[in-house]
């Protein structure tokens, strides 16, 4: 089985070339955000304020890692369930240019519609494989909302994170 090597940020041409079922290894810089961070970002958008980070062509990983042990970059870092971010994701795709999301489990029709219109992709990581995935994170720093603890927004630098294209930019999905 061929693994496609991708480097974040991700651009439209690359995203449109991916198909559901493709196995990917991802490099580069991505951002973490989960429930509480999404709520804050969308509240800023609703009131017309500037976001603490530019999401254009970026990848968001739905993860709340365990704290790093002394000397470690990060703790265990597997994906959290994506459907809880469904109320927020269409806004981030359509208004902020978010290119890709990494999580686990199916997405709502509204998210898939936004992905099709704006050319975004949804990757699945293996839920629970948090120790394994942590081995592909080489750097991590908090860039916003440190008060949210595990839900703070972090920038992660990746080396060969294993992913599967679960829903592609044409709306084709592996979930039945």
């Amino acid at each position, binding site marked *: *089985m061929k693994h496609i090597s991708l480097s974040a940020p991700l651009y439209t041409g690359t995203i449109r070339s991916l198909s559901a*079922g493709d*196995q990917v290894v991802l490099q580069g810089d991505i951002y973490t955000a989960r429930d*509480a961070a999404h709520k804050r970002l969308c509240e800023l958008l609703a009131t017309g304020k500037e976001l603490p980070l530019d999401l254009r062509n970026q990848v968001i990983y739905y*993860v*709340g*890692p*365990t*704290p*790093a*042990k002394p000397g470690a970059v990060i*703790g*265990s*870092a*597997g994906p*959290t*369930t994506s*459907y809880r971010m469904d109320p927020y994701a269409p806004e981030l795709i359509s208004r902020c240019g978010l290119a890709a999301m990494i999580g*686990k*489990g*199916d997405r709502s029709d509204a998210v898939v519609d936004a992905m099709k219109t704006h050319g975004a992709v949804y990757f*699945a990581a*293996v*839920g*629970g*494989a*948090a*120790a*394994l*995935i*942590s*081995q592909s994170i080489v750097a991590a720093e908090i860039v916003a909302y440190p008060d*949210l*603890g*595990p839900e703070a927004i972090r920038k992660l630098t990746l080396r060969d994170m*294993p992913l*599967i294209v*679960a829903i592609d930019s044409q709306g084709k999905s*592996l*979930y*039945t």
Partner: protein
Amino acid sequence: MRMLSRDQVVSAVRNLCLEAARYLPADVLARMEKYAHAEKNFRGRAILEQCIENARIAAEKKLPICQDTGFAVLFVEMGTACCLDEGSVEEACQEGVRRGYTEGYLRKSIVHDPLFDRVNTNDNTPAVIHLRSVPGKSLRIVLAPKGGGSENMSRTAMLKPADGVEGVRDFVFRTVVEAGGNPCPPTIVGVGLGGTLEQCCLMAKKSLLRPVGTPHEDPRYARLEQELLEQINSSGVGPQGLGGRTTALAVHITPYPCHIAQLPVAVNLNCHAARHAEVTL
């Protein structure tokens, strides 16, 4: 009367938190390996192999198996002939959880208030503690940290007695299939039957602690468990909801006496990281 020290209980619970987070129980791992060999879907098999590799890395590097180190759920059986030198067993368990999660670099996932004030308590307390009094001089503590993803997909229904076996079968099957990839399949499906609403849910959760795949001692329930497992694994959901046969590793049913007017059923799903650890003092 046997006197146990509070410190001994605190330290035992602290260690259970670390053990449960890092080491996948041998019965769960063996079951996953068996299913990985049998899985014909290439993607499903690759996912199961990642789960097995993950358990190996976690144990070797002393890392949590999953970043969601869970809500600490404790089942405590306190012998009537033993007591603590100071405070209550519940208080000692809470302190043990506090120390385990903070000193062990485990994720703190508990907020103060569910609706208005979702501020992290920063030490993963309070734990949920189920305390029972039993004969004897021992204190037995089972810690089963419960992740949010699979717990969210759990369901309960107050069926009519007339709904019978088919009603139960249909509810359990629908719950697992509708959960899809969200609870991190392959799951362990804990089913509580009977009791009151809350007892039924407790039975479902306790079902998750049974050694994986050991059949119920009543052959009628054992058959229903096996039939449900086959039906669930024919659904096509598969590992992570991405297709294949391995949707569940086991179905465990725990019945309890119930009211003539009722047939409660609760389904508590556990992800493949079916963590638990126990100690007897």
